């Protein structure tokens, strides 16, 4: 197991290296540069050139890449052109929001998706099954931004139950420790702050969860269907075990293994889905910042954030694989 982890981590090195090279070339081939955004609309060509020079953007790309890599060794992604602050600081400040949102979406998707998928599979062909499958398919088919709008129109504008934007009520002065507001509220025992942050998470959470939810429902359903037909479930039934034992120990435990993999992969979708969701809900995470950064041609942020996201994604999947190994002994010995 340890060897497996070490191996995967080592494999990460060339992948990240390749990613950085690819990204670097790619980003720096984008037309335009940060100078327009720094200087605004009236800048003269001369001053733009000066900005480019002082940012080192006039040097050959490999020199720039070399400089980037030299700093990267010390885990320094440089400084955001947009905000003039270190990229890692920006990431550290914004990632908790995205993390909170992603986790919420995952909790929603998993919390509803797995039970629903299970029930659909057990009552295969029933209206519940058909409804679930249809509903989950529909979930994938609604563009997120449209879903977000409809949710807000219903729950914020009309019913006034959930806030439509932001992460916490502006009128609240909550203490922040981790940057994940719900957690902060719990840590500092400011229950109302935690509750308020939680309310703010509901709508973006649902919007972001729609796609992973559909995937999880369908995967769970298919997987349960498959496992239910397995011989060992029949064996368990033949042993006269109670329905609960059969369900929990024999069906779900096995059926959830492939679901776990899918969840791991869905994290990638969540992270990129966050770009849209955070924009529409004015939710200050890495997604909306990344979007701004592209406009700003904020190379250090783009490089740093995308690589960090890729790293998070790869690590999450590694974690999934590891936990897979912990649950499934067949994978353990390798």
């Amino acid at each position, binding site marked *: 197991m340890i*060897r497996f982890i*070490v*191996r995967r981590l*080592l*494999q990460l090195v060339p992948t990240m290296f390749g990613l950085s090279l690819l990204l670097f070339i790619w980003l720096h081939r984008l037309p335009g540069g940060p100078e327009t955004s720094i200087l605004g609309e009236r800048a003269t060509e001369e001053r733009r050139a000066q900005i480019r020079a002082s940012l080192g953007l006039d040097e050959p790309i490999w020199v720039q890449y070399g400089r980037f890599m030299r700093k990267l060794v010390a885990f320094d992604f440089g400084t955001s052109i947009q905000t003039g602050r270190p990229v890692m600081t920006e990431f550290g400040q914004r990632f908790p929001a995205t993390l909170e949102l992603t986790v919420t979406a995952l909790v929603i998707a998993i919390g509803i998706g797995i039970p629903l998928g299970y029930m659909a599979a057990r009552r295969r062909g029933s209206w519940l099954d058909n409804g679930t499958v249809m509903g989950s398919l529909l979930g994938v088919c609604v563009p997120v931004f449209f879903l977000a709008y409809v949710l807000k129109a219903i729950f914020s504008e009309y019913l006034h139950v959930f806030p439509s934007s932001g992460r916490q009520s502006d009128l609240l002065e909550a203490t922040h420790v981790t940057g994940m507001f719900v957690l902060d509220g719990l840590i500092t025992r400011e229950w109302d702050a935690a509750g308020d942050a939680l309310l703010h998470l509901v709508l973006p959470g649902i919007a972001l969860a729609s796609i992973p939810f559909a995937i999880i429902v369908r995967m769970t359903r298919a997987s349960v269907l498959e496992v239910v037909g397995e011989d060992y479930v029949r064996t368990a039934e033949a042993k006269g075990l109670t329905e609960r034992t059969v369900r929990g120990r024999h069906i779900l435990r096995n059926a959830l293994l492939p679901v776990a993999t899918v969840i791991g992969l869905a994290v990638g979708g969540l992270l990129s889905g966050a770009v849209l969701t955070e924009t529409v809900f004015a939710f200050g995470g890495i997604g909306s910042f990344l979007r701004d950064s592209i406009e700003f041609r904020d190379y250090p942020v783009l490089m740093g954030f995308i690589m960090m996201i890729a790293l998070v994604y790869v690590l999450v999947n590694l974690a999934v694989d590891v936990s897979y190994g912990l649950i499934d002994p067949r994978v353990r010995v*390798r």
Partner: protein
Amino acid sequence: MTLLSVQGLKVHFPIRRGVLFDRTVGHVYAVDGVDLEVPRGGTYGLVGESGCGKSTLGRALLRLSPVTAGRVVFDGVDVAALNGEALRKSRRRMQMIFQDPMSSLDPRQNVESILTEGLVAHGLGVNAAQRRTKVMETLDAVGLPRWAMSRYPHEFSGGQRQRIGIARALVLGPELIVADEPVSALDVSIQAQVINLLEELQAELGLTYLVIAHDLAVVKHISDVVGVMYLGGLVEEAPSRELYATPLHPYTRALMSAVPVPDPEVEDRRERILLRGDLPSPANPPSGCRFNTRCPWAQAKCATERPELVEVRPGHKVACHFTAEIDAGVLARN
């Protein structure tokens, strides 16, 4: 008269594992030093427990498995040393029949295409019409209706599929056919049809067979000479009648006594030699005589010295240190 002669054949599969780069940490000794000879027009039967290396040996003869060491002399040519185009050309004369008739047929190819593929590959048959005639003749030979040509494998019953597999092997006009468990996937009543077909074809076309099976009765029925394999090596080889009458190797004896006979009289009378435990792993074979861990007659010597396959009677070879003693009944079972 010898068509096929195998000398010191070894097939070792490397076990690769490593942190960053895979290193070979050991080998699966699938076939570990096998000598055998098959005369032209004869049938050599190979039996043994699952995982003892029968299939690997059969495949190695056709170079479908890599050969680690040894010679496979087919009609005077060492096939094990051939490569590239020469190897491909040589395949025309040696064919294979597989165990699972379904998985060995491409589900997307119709029977005609399955049968002509080899002809095309070897440039046999000048034109499509000729090839078609050839295919039809072969279908007739294996007892399939001609309309089968345009059908797909899944439209046939198991027995018919196996006939297609046989036809595919036959169509190239090979001299040697390696049949890897040709009947074990078939229903009892179909097995006999296929066995009879194989026998008829041999009589008609003068084919040479190497038949692999784990069912001793089948092997004994079809073969002139039977080789008993245990953990990568031959432990006994004898004409089939002789083998049944006087099995010499302890393993053969145990095998014989284990085969159930559909006759209550025989069953009630039989004395079983029950073996302890299971086949050891070919990756970590026991030292000395491979069978010593399960042998009822095992002695100290057996754990250290590996017995050679020696001819104890004309045509009857055994690899056991104590053949004579066991046969004479002087060695007690432990």
